[in-house]
């Protein structure tokens, strides 16, 4: 069975069941509020949001693969392109682009045109260090780890902190070969 051609983000987004973005935005707002009450320390909230994103990423990747017919990505460059072009559109209905590749193609930026996590968020003085959308960095890190790519994902630009766009840096740390260690060493 010849592998079906990978489908574009738009095609998948149009074909999947969708919900009003406001339900998503308001629910995410409820999560951040809960964390701020439970953890108080803004740095702790950033960590917890990233961890929650990671927990989502390790599950969401299978849906991404199942629905997008993406076959094994040749290299990290293609992977980042697929995440931006297909992944963000398929799940969040937003377009993202990949820029700022470094020389050896192991580090890039993903820039979001729009961000449905945020509607009328304004960081009060008590939350200055907060990375409100930190769940996104965790999702990318978790998803890539499930396809054997250890990465570090950090925010470069955040509109809530006065920048003009949302920009995530994705740095490939290690490509984990996953041959089965059948030599009985473990």
């Amino acid at each position: 069975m010849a592998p079906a051609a990978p489908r574009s983000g738009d095609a998948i987004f149009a074909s999947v069941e969708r919900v009003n973005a406001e339900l998503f935005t308001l629910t995410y707002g409820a999560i951040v509020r809960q964390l701020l009450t439970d953890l108080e320390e803004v740095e702790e909230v950033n960590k917890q949001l990233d961890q929650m994103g990671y927990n989502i990423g390790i599950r969401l990747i299978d849906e991404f693969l199942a629905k997008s017919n993406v076959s094994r990505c040749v290299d990290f460059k293609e992977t980042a392109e697929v995440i931006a072009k297909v992944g963000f559109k398929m799940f969040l209905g937003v377009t993202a682009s990949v820029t700022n590749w470094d020389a050896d193609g192991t580090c890039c930026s993903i820039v979001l045109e729009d961000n449905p996590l945020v509607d009328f968020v304004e960081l009060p003085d008590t939350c200055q260090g907060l990375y409100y959308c930190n769940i996104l960095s965790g999702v990318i890190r978790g998803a890539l780890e499930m396809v054997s790519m250890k990465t570090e994902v950090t925010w470069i630009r955040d509109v809530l902190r006065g920048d003009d766009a949302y920009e995530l840096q994705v740095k490939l740390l290690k490509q984990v070969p996953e041959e089965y260690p059948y030599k009985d060493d473990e």
Partner: protein
Amino acid sequence: MIGVGKIKQYSNVLDKPLSKGKQEVSLSAFAFLFSELVQYNQTQVDNIAELERRLEDAGYAVGARVLELLCHRDKGNRRETRLLGILSFVHSTVWKVLFGKVADSLEKGTEHEDEYMISEKELLVNKFISTPKDMGTFNCGAFVAGIVRGVLDSAGFPAVVTAHFVPMEGQQRPRTTILIKFAEEVLQREARLG
């Protein structure tokens, strides 16, 4: 770096127009997020009643915002002052915006004057959720019960709102019923307003 991804810039957030509520995300995105909300709260509690209360609290604040937004945007700045008015606001306007459809049914409780039930064969938040048997009557719909309570409370109709699985004969899956039990003062005011 060309201005890729330049989001329409507003000097401050209050200049941004209210969204029309037309933007969408995939159901999967919401399902994964909601699943994580439930899993996170499981780590914060040590019994099911507390888990339900925390989900309800999370929903409550959403309800308070939904009321103001929808009455302003979709209801042309009109306030609900009567019980049936606020119930149909929840059953249709709120449900349509949040869950994309009017709720399956809105009924008055048979035994008690102060009880009403909104039922849904397939509550959106429960669509992919299989509650383990050992969690008894626990229902993730507590989040939706919280939203409903948030709407009712803010509108001046305080109530206790709970989510229940109700088996339906001939159906493998029980439906979810949101049970609304209004506070005494609401009924008295209703009587007074005649």
